[in-house]
């Protein structure tokens, strides 16, 4: 029982080169590497581009090698998503207007990248994101403020306060997570059927 028709739920697209930009920053993780490779194929030769990629992946997909071998563009490989996000922060601080950001990976990764991009006031017409791999969610407990990764069910037990949380479609870009609210607040102990919805 996911609450639907909530407009904050992010909508993702397929990455396309935006040649109105003058510098293209490609950021990805895991199976997002395939989307970055597709995008690089579509980029005209000589386009000023840079790739930041994390091999870390829930599914085990690692496209470090083909990305490094692509040539013509600088590609930096990192072992973890956190390191890519930290590097992105540093790169954006030196970027100029005209930059286009392309993000490919899990929703949690896209969300973390979005938090950094927002600090640089990158807007919707300067950034694109493509969700790759599983639809697992990062869920934020609105009661104890703990976030947990890789939630694939409609109800999840909070790792912080142990409440059963109903995972809503209400997404916060600031927190980069879906809101989890106590599922049995009205009638304690009565939970909706737990369903695997987002594998």
């Amino acid at each position, binding site marked *: 029982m996911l609450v639907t028709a909530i407009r904050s739920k992010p909508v993702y697209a397929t990455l396309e080169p935006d040649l109105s930009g003058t510098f293209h920053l490609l950021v990805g993780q895991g199976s997002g590497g395939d989307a970055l490779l597709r995008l690089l194929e579509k980029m005209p030769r000589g386009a000023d581009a840079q790739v930041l990629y994390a091999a870390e992946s829930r599914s085990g997909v690692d496209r470090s090698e083909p990305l490094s071998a692509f040539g013509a563009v600088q590609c930096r490989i990192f072992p973890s998503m956190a390191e890519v996000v930290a590097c992105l922060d540093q790169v*954006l601080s030196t970027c*100029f207007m005209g930059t*286009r950001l392309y993000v490919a990976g899990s929703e949690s990764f896209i969300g973390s990248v979005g938090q950094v991009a927002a600090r640089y006031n990158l807007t919707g017409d*300067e950034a694109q994101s493509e969700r790759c791999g599983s639809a697992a969610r990062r869920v934020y407990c609105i009661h104890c403020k703990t976030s947990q990764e890789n939630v694939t069910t409609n109800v999840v037990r909070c790792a912080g306060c142990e409440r059963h949380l109903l995972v809503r479609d209400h997404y916060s870009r600031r927190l980069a997570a879906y809101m989890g609210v106590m599922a049995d607040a009205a009638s304690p102990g009565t939970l909706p059927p737990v369903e695997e919805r987002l594998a």
Partner: protein
Amino acid sequence: MRHDEAIPVEVAAVEQVTPLVKQFTLRRVDGGPFPPFSGGCHVVVVMHGRGRTFRNPYSLLGSPRNVDCYQIAVRRHDAGRGGSRFMHDEVRVGTRLEVGHPVNLFPLAKLARKHVFVAGGVGITPILAMVDDLRSTSAPWELHYRVRGPEHDHFGRKLRDENGNRVHLYYGSHGQTLDLGRIVANQPLGTHIYTCGAEQMVAAVAQAAKAAGWTDSHVHCERFVAPPIGDPFDVHLARSGVTVHIPSERSLLEAIEAVGVDAPYLCRGGVCGQCETEVLELEGVLVHNDHWLSDEERAAAKKIMPCVSRARCTRLVLDR
């Protein structure tokens, strides 16, 4: 905003600040404070001339922290419909006018990391208040201001005295031109650019920003147009059941208001969309002067913005 919500004001001071521009300080007749406003706001000033009411939009140039008075600057347009001539020739200390409530169609981008302003001539007025708003933030800004010559530079000098080398002044008489390519190059991410001035300057800034890879969400402009003079024509207002003659020097909106028909408006400069009106019948062509309708809508000739647009026609029927 409606005429009946206008605030009665009295002119408290008039200053000739450049050969073409007068600055007016307005206080409420009831002595109270004005509605609060933000940098980039304009108000519609209602002037009761002999047998003719003018309603012209002017940017508020004073500090948004001071609502004891409103300040506007009016450039004289001798070839215009008469509103600016009225302000220059008839209005003096003590003259009663009315102003509408402030509307902001040119706001600062609150999340910007840097602000770049480009202005020409009297286009500096909204930027004076915007720059004042930025005092409360840490965001850096710079201004590039071009005027005909030093005698036209009252506001630029004032800004430079207060803000130092953030303010770059260019005098046409000295052959100094804006290097827009350089201004938009190498600006940090999250920079927003704002232009107010002649249509040509606004278009040139937009073009330079686009060429440097800026997206539309970071480019802002104030491009009010004064209602141009044109051929006279007649319009029939279907809902009101009246036919109105539109003389050369009067806008469609002004003529509709003059016969007592209530018509919506906000900017009176062709940018806000408030006065959009459906064209029911047309024999002739519409002369679109607004920045609101799309090219397709203009071509379809089913809508008109009566604040600035006209027609060359033998018959025009509007849904008003």
